[in-house]
C-alpha cells in the first residue's frame, strides 16, 4: 500500500536527531569549517556518543541495524538510518562524518564479519569514550577501479603482515589514533589473482606499523578527517581477516564481493547525506529570500514565474526527488529486495542534483551567497563530496546502465 509517511516511532526518533542537529551541529558548523582539523566538534561528538550508546544498535551502524534487528516481515533499519543521516547531514555533513560510530568499517564487519569479529570490534561502540571505525580502500595510483589494490597482506605464522598506502580514509585518524577504533583495510593476498586476491582486514587502533601520514585539506566537509594511512610491516592477528581466505581463480571472491556489497548497502546512506546538505541549502535560501519578499507562487501559470522563483521551486523539487529515491532504495533493502540499481540511482541523482541545488543557492543569494557570512557557500563545498565519494556520478551511471542492460563490468567499462 503506497504510503509516503513514516511511522510515529521513526518520526519521534527523527525529531530527536533533528534537535541534536539544530543544537549541537548548526551552531558550530561555520567554526568547524574555518578551523578545519584544529577544532574537534567535541560538544557534538560527546552528546552524540551518549545518544548512540543509549539507542544501541539501531543507530550504531545503520547497515548493521538492517541486517541484525527488526521484525521478520519488514525490517526498518535502512529507512531509519537514511532518515537519521539526512538530518545529521542537514546539521553539518562534516560533523556527521565525524560522528563516533562504526560508519563504513562497521558496515563491513556487520555484513561480512564472524560473530567473534562483531563482538570484538563492534561491542566497543556501546561503551566508554567515543570511537570511530574507518574503511581504507583507495590508493594513490587508483581511481574508481577498486580492483587495482597494490597493498599486500602476507601470512606469516599467525599474523598477516600488511604493507601499502591508503588515501581518502574517512575518519582515519579518529579511528586509529584518536580513539580505540579500528580500520578495515583492503589488501591483496595474491596480486596475480587480481580482484579475487583482494581481502579486507581488520586493523585495530594504534597497531604498530600503521601510521597516519597526513590529513588532507579539503574543499568541504573540512572537520571530517580524511587521512593517508601508511602500513609498514603492520602485523595483525590471523583471525582479523574479514570473510573467506579463499582465492578463487575465476570470478569474484567472497572477500571482494563482500566488500563491494558494503557499497551497495552504503550508497543510500551517502545519498541521504547529500540530501541533508541540499535540503539545508534549499531551506536557507527559501527563508532568506522570503525575508526579502520572494514568495514562490505555486500553482500559477508557468510562464509567469520569475527566474528566481523558478529556481527556488526546482531546488525544492530536486531535494524532494533525491530524497524519495533514497527512501525507495532503503525501503527495498528493508523488504529484502535487491536494490543495486536503486542504490546507484539515488546516489547518482542526489550527488549531482544536490551540488546543483547548493550552487544555485549561492547564485540566488548573489554576492551574499558567495560570502562566508552565510552558510550556503559552505554547503556548496560540502555538497560536492556527495557527487564523488563512494563512486562518482559517472561510476554510478555505469552501474545503473549495467543493471539496465544486464551487462557485466567487462561488457560496459
Amino acid at each position: 500500500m503506497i504510503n509516503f509517511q513514516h511511522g510515529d516511532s521513526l518520526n519521534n526518533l527523527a525529531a530527536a536527531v533533528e534537535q541534536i542537529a539544530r543544537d549541537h551541529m548548526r551552531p558550530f558548523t561555520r567554526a568547524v569549517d574555518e578551523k578545519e582539523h584544529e577544532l574537534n566538534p567535541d560538544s557534538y561528538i560527546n552528546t552524540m556518543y551518549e545518544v548512540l550508546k543509549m539507542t544501541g544498535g539501531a543507530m550504531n551502524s545503520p547497515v548493521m541495524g538492517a541486517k541484525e534487528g527488526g521484525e521478520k516481515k519488514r525490517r526498518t533499519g535502512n529507512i531509519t538510518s537514511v532518515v537519521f543521516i539526512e538530518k545529521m547531514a542537514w546539521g553539518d555533513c562534516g560533523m556527521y562524518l565525524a560522528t563516533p560510530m562504526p560508519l563504513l568499517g562497521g558496515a563491513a564487519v556487520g555484513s561480512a564479519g564472524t560473530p567473534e569479529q562483531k563482538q570484538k570490534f563492534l561491542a566497543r561502540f556501546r561503551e566508554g569514550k567515543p570511537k570511530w571505525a574507518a574503511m581504507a580502500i583507495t590508493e594513490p595510483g587508483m581511481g574508481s577501479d577498486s580492483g587495482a589494490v597494490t597493498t599486500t597482506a602476507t601470512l606469516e605464522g599467525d599474523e598477516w603482515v600488511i604493507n601499502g598506502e591508503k588515501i581518502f580514509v574517512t575518519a582515519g585518524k579518529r579511528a586509529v589514533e584518536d580513539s580505540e577504533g579500528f580500520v578495515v583495510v583492503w589488501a591483496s593476498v595474491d596480486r596475480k589473482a587480481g580482484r579475487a586476491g583482494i581481502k579486507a582486514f581488520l586493523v585495530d587502533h594504534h597497531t604498530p606499523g600503521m601510521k597516519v601520514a597526513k590529513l588532507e585539506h579539503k574543499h568541504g566537509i573540512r572537520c571530517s578527517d580524511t587521512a593517508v594511512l601508511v602500513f609498514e610491516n603492520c602485523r595483525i592477528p590471523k583471525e582479523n581477516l574479514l570473510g573467506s581466505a579463499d582465492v578463487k581463480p575465476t570470478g569474484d571472491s567472497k572477500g571482494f564481493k563482500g566488500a563491494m556489497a558494503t557499497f551497495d548497502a552504503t550508497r543510500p546512506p551517502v545519498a541521504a547525506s547529500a540530501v541533508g546538505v541540499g535540503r539545508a541549502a534549499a531551506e536557507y535560501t527559501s527563508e532568506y529570500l522570503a525575508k526579502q519578499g520572494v514568495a514562490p507562487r505555486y500553482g500559477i501559470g508557468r510562464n509567469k514565474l520569475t527566474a528566481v522563483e523558478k529556481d527556488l521551486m526546482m531546488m525544492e523539487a530536486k531535494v524532494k526527488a533525491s530524497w524519495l529515491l533514497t527512501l525507495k532504495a532503503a525501503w527495498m533493502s528493508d523488504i529484502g529486495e535487491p536494490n543495486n540499481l536503486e542504490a546507484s540511482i539515488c546516489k547518482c541523482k542526489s550527488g549531482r542534483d544536490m551540488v546543483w541545488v547548493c550552487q544555485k543557492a549561492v547564485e540566488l543569494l548573489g554576492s551574499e551567497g558567495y560570502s562566508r557570512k552565510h552558510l550556503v557557500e559552505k554547503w556548496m563545498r560540502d555538497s560536492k563530496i556527495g557527487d564523488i565519494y563512494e563512486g562518482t556520478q559517472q561510476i554510478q551511471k555505469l552501474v545503473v546502465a549495467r543493471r539496465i542492460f544486464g551487462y557485466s563490468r567487462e561488457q560496459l567499462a
Partner: protein
Amino acid sequence: MFDLEPSEDQKLMVQTARELAKNEMDPAAHDADEAAKLPADFLKKSWELGLACAAIPEKYNGASMERSAVTGAMILEELGAGDLSMAIAMLAPSLVAYPVLDYGTDLQKEIVLRACTGSEFPKLTAALMEPVYDFDPTALRTTAIRSGTNYVLNGVKTLVPNGSTADSFLVYARVGGTGFDNVQAFFVQRTVPGVTVSEKEKNMGINALDTVTLTLENVGVAPDTRVGGAKGIDFERIMSYSRVAQSALALGVARKAYEHSVTYAMERKTWGQPIATRQAIAFMIADMRIELDAARLLVWEAAWHLDKGRKATKESYLAKMVVDEMVLKVTDDSVMVMGGHGFIRENPVERWLRNGRGFATFDGLAMV
C-alpha cells in the same frame, strides 16, 4: 510506514490498462497520428473496460472504485505509454465526471454521473486552457459575470478534447479577481447562442486527439449550470488532480521512450558492438531511467497527498514542473539514441518527442 508496494487492486487495474495500451493503443498509434484520427472503435472499446470514471459510486451505476489519485496515476502512466492522444480522448469524460462527483449538486450528479456510467461514450468534455502564452489557471481570461440570476460567459478556450463531438462543455471561468478561489465551472451546451466550436485544431503532436477552440461570446447560462451551485468547486484541488494526471501520462510517454531506447541500444550494433556498450549511449539511457524514477516518485507523492485529503498544490505543481522537463529530455534523448532513424516517422520516438514537448504547454488536459 513508508511503502511503495501497490495494492492488489492497483496491480489489477494497472494490468488492465497495460493490456489495453499494448493491444489497442500502441499498435494503432502511428496510423492514428498520421491520419489525425482515433481508430474507429477505440473510444467504444476502451470505454467498455471502465478505466475512466471508475470511481463513480454504485448509486449511479458506477464501478465504485476507491477515488484514489495514486491509483489513477498508475493507470494513466500505462495509458500514456500506450498513446497520448487515445489516452486523453478516453479520459476526457473524467474531466467532467470527477469535479461533479466531488462538488456537484445532487441533480448534477444524477445527470452527469449516470451519463458517465452508460454504455455509450459520454459526449461531455471540459474547457479550461486558453490560447495565450502565459495561460494561468489562477487568472483565467474567460469570465462569468453575474447578470440577474444567470451568468454571462465570455472568453476563448483551446485544446478542448473531443470537442468536435461533445454536446456539453464544462467551462472554467473567473467569477471574481485572481486566485484559485475565483474560478468556477459551468455547463455550456454546444447549441447555446454565442458558442462557437472551431474545426479540429492542429498541433505538433497529439494529432489523433480531436481538440477544438471554443469561443464564448456573451453566453448566458442558468445558475444550475454552475457545478456545485452556490457552494461551487474547489478549483485548486481540481488543478492538483489534473496536474497529477497529466504528469502521470507524461511518465508513460517517457517510460515508453526509455524502454524503446533500451531495446534498440542492445540490438543495434556499430563496429560490431551493441551501442549500449558505449558510455555515451549507456549514460544517456542511465540518465533517462534515473530521471524517470525520480519523477514518478514525485507524482505518486503528490497523488498520495491528494488521497490524504490535502490540496497538494505545491506538490502537484512541482511534480509537473519536473515531469515536463523530464519527458522532453527523455524523448529527445531517445531520438538521439536512434540517430537518423529516430527522425523518421516510422519510428515512434519521433512521435513521442512531439507529444512529449507538449506537456509543458498543457495544463488541465486530463483528470484522475
